[in-house]
Each structure stands twice: as C-alpha cells, then as structure tokens.
C-alpha cells in the first residue's frame, strides 16, 4: 500500500515535471542533479559568472555553492557569498503571463547596518526589476522596478528589524506582458515568529523603459540564500 502510494506520488511528480518542461519552463530546486551538494553552481544548468574575470578570484568557487542548510534540517539550498552570477536562456516562454517564484533568506548583523543592498535578485530587461535585501537602517526586504540597485529606493515590504534571519521568504512575481504590469506576493515568518504576507497587484513595469515581452537574464548578487527557483508560463 505504501509502495503504491509512492508510485502514485512519483508518477504525479513526473507528469508535473514533464508538463512543465513541455512549456519550456525552468525549475531549479538545487536538491537534485545536475546540482551537487557542496559544489559550485557555476557551469551547471546555465549559471555563470556575471563577469568572467571573477572566476580567477581565490574564493570564486565558494560564492555560489549548493550547501546543506544547517538551519533548515540540512536541506540543500544555494548559498551566495559575495556572489555575482547570471543565468540566461529561459527557454521559450511563449505565454503572455509568466510566474517567477523563489525563496530568499538572509543573515545579517543586527547592529551593523551597511549602506547598500546586501542581496539582489535582478531580472533583465529590468522593467519589472529587482527583489532585494537592503541592509541599511531604513532598509529591509523589498522590490523595485528599475533594477538600478540604489539604496533607499524601492518598496520595502518587511523592515530590517522585523526580518527573521535564516528563514526563507517566498517571493512570487506574476508578470503580465500584455498589461506590462506584475503582481508581487511575499510570504514567510517575522522575527517574532508571527506569519508574514505581502501582496501588491498590478505594479507597473518601469514606464521609462520600452515594453518587454520576455525574461532574458537573471542576476544574483550579494550574500544570502536562494532556493526553489521556478519560471513558469501561465
């Protein structure tokens, strides 16, 4: 009976993956091949250094590594440490609506705020922009349209003081290329343990830019944890 249930579950998973792949979507959960525990993701599944010269830095192999997360029951996740990497070629996302989702976690010193964005997830073209952790006193987890990464800009959804460190926040962006808008949803747990949820619908793509109809590039910059990334046609 147990085996049967396993087969059904496994079968469903295969069908789901097959369905997803058929639409040219992209899923990276860092828990299965081609990802390897304790190894860099550079050179794997389309991830590369944003600037090839960075490959020569002594700590380069460690800036984007799949590690067992000791604060998350040893589950594998992507650890970013002073990272600067990119991924292009998101397949043929033909539909007008595309959903992007991923999980982010940060670890920062409470009393030592910096004045920059410590972790940035940037989509190019940058009209629907950037998700970030702004490590300044007035910063926090947030998003902004232009992807310019200027401190103090963008919408802070969870202030720095309320962030639970080493706890994943799930971000979901539903892009509507027809309307040139996107919906943002963020869920997780606050520092005090209470549930956190944020939602904003119909956020306009940056109006100063030309209309876009695809995702070209993802950049991951800075320090933190990144997991369960998917890009899906809707």
């Amino acid at each position: 009976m147990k085996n049967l249930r396993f087969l059904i579950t496994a079968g469903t998973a295969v069908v789901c993956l097959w369905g997803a792949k058929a639409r040219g979507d992209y899923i990276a959960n860092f828990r299965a091949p081609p990802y390897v525990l304790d190894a860099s993701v550079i050179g794997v599944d389309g991830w590369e250094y944003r600037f090839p010269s960075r490959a020569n830095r002594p700590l380069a192999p460690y800036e984007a590594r799949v590690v067992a997360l000791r604060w998350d029951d040893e589950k594998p996740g992507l650890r970013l440490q002073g990272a600067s990497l990119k991924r292009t070629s998101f397949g043929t996302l033909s539909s007008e609506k595309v959903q992007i989702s991923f999980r982010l976690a940060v670890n920062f010193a409470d009393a030592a705020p910096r004045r920059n964005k410590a972790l940035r997830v940037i989509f190019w073209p940058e009209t629907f922009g950037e998700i970030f952790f702004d490590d300044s006193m007035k910063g926090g987890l947030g998003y902004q349209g232009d992807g310019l990464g200027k401190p103090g800009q963008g919408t802070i959804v969870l202030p720095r003081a309320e962030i639970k460190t080493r706890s994943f926040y799930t971000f979901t962006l539903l892009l509507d290329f027809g309307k040139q808008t996107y919906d943002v949803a963020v869920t997780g747990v606050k520092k005090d343990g209470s549930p956190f949820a944020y939602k904003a619908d119909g956020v306009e793509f940056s109006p100063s830019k030309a209309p876009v109809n695809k995702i070209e590039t993802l950049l991951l910059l800075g320090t933190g944890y990144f997991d369960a990334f998917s890009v899906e046609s809707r």
Partner: protein
Amino acid sequence: MKRIASFILALAATLVAPAQTTSPNAMPLAIDADFPGGNILVETIEGDTVHLKPELKGTAKPWFYWYFRVKGAAGRTLTFVFDKSVMGVRGPGVSLDAGRTWKWLGADAVKEGTFTYAFPAGANEVRFSVGMPYLRADFDRFLARHKDSPFLQVETLTKTPKGRDVIMVRIGEKGTKARFAVAATARHHCCEMMASYILEGLLEEALANNATGRGLREHAEFLFVPFMDTDGVENGDQGKGRPPHDHNRDYIDQPIYAEVRALKEKLPAWSEGRPLIFFDLHDPALKVDIHETVHFLEPESRDQAQRLDELTSLLERDQQGGIIYSKQTTMRFGTGYNRNTPGISSGWARSLPNTILGVTMETAYANAGGCEVNADSARDLGRDLAFALQEFLKAHPELAIKKLEGAQ
C-alpha cells in the same frame, strides 16, 4: 569588615525583605542566590529599588559575574541598580523557567547599569544574570538528550576538592581508531558561561547523524571537559584571577587544581601520539572593543598559525549561524594580550609533541560584531566550528601521516 556587613545586609534582605506586596496574602519579596551558580550581594532594598553587586567570592580584582533570583514580585515593577561596569551590552539575561532558558532584557531597558523590570502577573520566580548561566544541570540535560547515542561516552576526569565529579565526554565511532584527536575545554574561568553553549554546539555536531557528524567521527576522536573549574561553576564564583592564580594559569610543573592535574595526564595519554587539535573556550571580558567579537588567539608557531588561518578561513566561508564570524579579528601573536602567558592551557597543549593546533577561542557575552550572542546563536557557532573543523580534517590527511611517521 565591609564584606561581612554587606553579607549580613544581604542575608537580612533575603530573610526579612520588606513586604511591599500587592496583596496581604502574597509571598514576600525575596532576593537570593542560594542555588547552583548563584552570586549576588544585595546592598539595600528601598521601596521598589534594589541596589546590588556581584560577590567576588575570593577573587582579588573586581569582576562582573552575578546571578540571582527574585521571588514574590509577581505583578510588581522593580528597579535594580548595579554599577554599569557589571552590566552587559544587551542588559541582563532573564529567565522565567528557573534558569533553563534565557533572553536578554535588551539594551533599551538599561541605563548606566540600572534596569527596571515589570514582573509578569504569574511569575513566582524570575532569575537575572549578567549572562546566560550554564551549569552542570544544563549539561546533564544535553547528555540526557543524547543518552542513546552509540558515539557518546561519559566519564569522570577527576573529583574536585568539594567532592564533585569533573565530567569528561568522549565521542567517537565504536571499534575504530580515528586518525586525529580533538579536545576542547571550557570554564577554566568558571564565570565564562557563553563558551559552554559553543561547546554544546560542537558536541552536538560531533554526535550528529548527519554528513558533518559522520565526517567528524570518521577523522577524529573527541574529548571534552565542559567544566574545568567545576566547583567554581556550581558555587557561582568569578574564577578569573582567582588567587594565587586561576585555573588557566595552572598548567605549570605542580598544578594546584585537581582538574588541571588530571587533564595534564589524561590528554597526552588519550591522544596516543595522534595529531592533536586543542580548543580552549573563553569569554574574556564583558564588553567594549575586541571583547565584542569572536576571535582566536594566534599561536606563536608559524605552522600552527597557518593551520588556524586555514581553519578560520573555512569557518568564515562555511558558517551559517546567527553570529557572523570574521577572521580579521584573529589576535596576532605578540599583539594585545596574546603573548607567551605562563601556565595557560592552550600554551601547554601546544607544547605537546603531537599537537598540530592548540588555540584559545574568545567569544563575547552578548554582542559579536553586531550579532546577538545568546544560547542559540552560540550553539550555532559551535556547530559552524564543527563544520569547519570537519572540512579542515578532510583536507589534511597528510598531517596524520606525517605525525605517524614522526612517531616511528
């Protein structure tokens, strides 16, 4: 004379505390330190204001350890006045469960060493301390959680003058002899309790049934002595600077403390010539400057300094805990207070022919580079150190071979 006077005053305060209670039937206010680790001198109680100070208990120079409980204050708001030199940067540790778990009251609750506390309505007993006290009972709870572990062996290193067992823990795979020997000690200075949580994290990972635990046990056998001044810990002594010298100045020809005498015999015998790594864990001072960081004291020997550099690079690279460690904080040999201090444990460990790294690790009480040091984050730092150690051992099989060749 003054000491006796304040003791009597404290005693009087404990026994006949003013009955400023909310209802005539409520328990009278009582402040005491009559429990393991307890330490306080109550100078005066006037209305809702209590003046207190740490009891030096034989230590010559002023030190900052204190730990007391308050009973009969439920629903009241009391002000506790200390000298600011004995108050940490996140205020006092507060425990509502008789010292099992702790939280910092917070820097905002303290002004110049004085804090005010509103006792919750149902709180019959609240404990306060300069830190987050860790006693034998805490370690016993840890051992109870792991009592079924096949890798754990609990032994007695020796007995103290007061007849207490000095506990020693060995961890390793049964039936195999690991190539490396790793030992760690804490509480040579008995008041330095935050180091105990780091030690617990280290033990936890050495026992763990995960990749890190398996990796550690594959490469090393472990020996831990969690309370190098066992009597001092239970008595609530300061310990640091204890005359004629304290436990961490006792690694001399004729040690005066039972624990040190026993470890000086046990460690070389147990290590059996295997390459030895030795950590001695401390919390050297309450606050300010380098004392609000986690830092290692660099050994004088170039080889050992290099190994420490590698280990701390791994720690910096692979850490995942709430205390963000930076290896920039390493205190170079010959700088600050990192000198050839006679009689210190890590110096003695380094003098053993099979030691490949002997090092003192210094942790802050409440603030490490902006990160909150507490029981959880200190345990995580111990786990991070264990992970880095495992990486280090894995990367250096040649150190084991070299030592074996040297021994032949």
